[in-house]
C-alpha cells in the first residue's frame, strides 16, 4: 500500500517553478500535497497529484527531470500528540525518516502525513500496529 509521489527538478531561475505549475494546470492535474526542498541552485519539488503517471509524462515532454516513487502516506488524528505517536513508533523500530511533509486530508477532521523511509513495507506495518491508517492514491481522490 502506497501513494505515488512525483519529484521534479526545478532550476533556481526566474519562472522555474511557474513552468511546472503552468504545465500541470493546463492539463488539469490537481495537486493535493506539495513540498519543496531547496538549495541555492535548484530545488526538488515533491508532489502528490491526482494523475501521477500522466503528470510525469507532461513534465518530461517539457524536458524536466522527473521521478515517480512510492511513498508511505498515513492518516493523522487531528489532536495534540497525533504526529508524536507515529514518529515514536518508527523511532522505536530504528526506522530513519529521510523526509516527510503534511497535507490536509480530504477526509474531514483529519490530517495526512507523507513519510519517505528506506523500508516502506516495514514502516507501514509499524504504523498500522500503532493504530495509524495507511492511505492509497484512491483514498485521496474518491470523495
Amino acid at each position, binding site marked *: 500500500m502506497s501513494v505515488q509521489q512525483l519529484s521534479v*527538478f526545478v532550476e533556481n531561475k526566474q519562472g522555474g517553478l511557474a513552468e511546472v505549475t503552468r504545465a500541470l494546470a493546463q492539463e488539469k492535474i490537481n495537486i493535493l500535497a506539495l513540498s519543496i526542498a531547496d538549495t541555492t*541552485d535548484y530545488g*526538488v519539488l515533491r508532489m502528490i497529484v491526482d494523475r501521477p503517471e500522466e503528470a510525469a509524462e507532461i513534465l518530461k515532454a517539457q524536458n*524536466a*527531470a*522527473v*521521478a515517480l*516513487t512510492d511513498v508511505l502516506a498515513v492518516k493523522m488524528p487531528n489532536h495534540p500528540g497525533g504526529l508524536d505517536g507515529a514518529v515514536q513508533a518508527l523511532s522505536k523500530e530504528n526506522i530513519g525518516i*529521510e523526509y516527510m511533509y503534511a497535507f490536509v486530508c480530504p477526509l474531514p477532521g483529519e490530517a495526512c502525513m507523507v513519510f519517505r523511509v528506506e523500508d516502506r513495507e516495514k514502516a507501514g506495518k509499524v504504523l498500522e500496529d500503532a493504530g495509524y491508517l495507511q492511505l492509497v492514491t484512491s483514498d485521496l481522490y474518491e470523495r
Partner: protein
Amino acid sequence: MQVFFQKDIETMPRKELEALQLQKLKAAVAYCYHHTSFYRERLDKAGVGDGSRIKQLSDIQYIPYTTKDDFRDHYPFGLMAVPMKEVVRIHASSGTTGKPTVGVYTREDLDIWSDCVARVAVAGGVTAEDIVQISFGYGLFTGALGLHYGLEKIGATVIPASSGNTEKQMMMFRDFGVTGLVATPSYALYLSEAVKEAGYPMSAYKLRLGILGSEPCTPEMRDQIEENLGIYVSDNYGMTELGGPGVAGDCPMRQGMHFAEDHFLPEIIQPETGERLGEGEMGELVVTTLSKVGMPVLRYRTKDITSITYEPCPCGRTHARMSKTAGRTDDMLIIKGVNVFPTQIESVLIGTPHIGPHYQLVVRRKNYRDTLEVRVELINADLLDHYRELEALQRGLHDRLKSVLGLEAKVTLVQPKTLERFQGKAKRILDLRDQPEEE
C-alpha cells in the same frame, strides 16, 4: 582491408623521409622567396635569403614565424604565390575569431590535399565499399569539401548531406545504408543521442565508422560516440591556413595522429618565448608546408598545444605523430592565474554518470576574483528521490574538477536538454569578465 593509401610514402624509412623533407624545405623556401613579396622581405630581413644556405632540417629555426595576423594583414590574397588564373578553388576559415583566413588551391594543391585526406580516411578504416555521409557544413569551410574529395579518391560513396536537419540526417543513415559519418565530434554526439531517441532498432543502421574533426575530441567523448552509435571513431587534424583537414590523422593504434610529413614539416615551440622544444615536450605546434603551390606557409604558428613523437608506430607508419591537442592557446582560459583548457573539463564530465555530455562554462569576475561555473544537465531523474545522491554528484564533480584543474569550480545542475547543442564548432564558453559585475 586496405591499410595504407600510399604505403611507400607512409612507411618510408625516416632517413629517406628526412632527406626528402630537407630537399623539399629548401625548394619551398626558394619558392616563397621568389613568388611572394611578403616572404622575400621576411627572409631577407632574417638573413635566410632564398634558403640556399639551409644545410639541415634544424636550420628551419632561422626562418621567421608566420601567424594568423599575417593572414589577416594580407587578407585576402597577399600570401598567394601564383596568379589567380592558376587558382581553381578558394576556401576560407569560419572566422570564429575575426576576419576569415583565406586559402587558395591550384589543381596540384587539390590533388595533394585529397591524397592527404585519403590517407587519413583509409587509416580510419574507410574502404571503397563504404557509404559516407558528410555532415560537416558545406561552403567555404575546408572540412566538407576536403573530406568529400579525399573519400571520392578512395572510391567510397559520398553523400554531401551538410549539417543540420537531424531528422533527415537519420533518415539518410537508414535509407541509404550509410556506413560512415563525417562530422564534428559535438555534432556526432548530438546525432548519436538523436539516434537513440528516434526509437528505431540499431539494426536499422549500418553505421560502422566515424571520421571526426574540425574541433578537439577527448578520448572520453570519442568513447561515448562510439558506444552510442556502435561505430569506430578516428580523429584527424588540419586547418584552413595549412589547406584544411588531412595534415595529420589517427592510425588504428590511435596513439597519436600521423602527420603527412612529406607535405608538412612539424615543430613544437614554447609559445611565450618561441624557443624550439624537443620530442615529447608539450608546446605550440608550428607547421611548414612543403608542397603547397597556391599559398605556401613557412613556420605557421597553429596555436594548438600538443607534443610530437618520432617513435616508430606499431601500425608501420614512419611519419611523426602528434598527441591529441590539449587545447588552443586561443581557447585557453586563464582563471585566477590558472591555465584551463575546456578539454580538461570535458574529460571529467564525460566520464561521470547521471549527467549528460553537454556542458557550458561560465567565467565571471566578482570583487576582482575570477569564478568558474560549470553547468551540466542532470539526466538521471532517479537521483531526485535521494537528496544526498544529488549532493554527492555535485560534490564529486566539484572534487574531480578541482584535482584536474587545481581550481575551485561551482557545479550547477540544470534540466535535461536545456544547454545549447552545436551542429558545427561548439561554443561552450561564456566569458562574462568584461561585462559589468552582477549585483
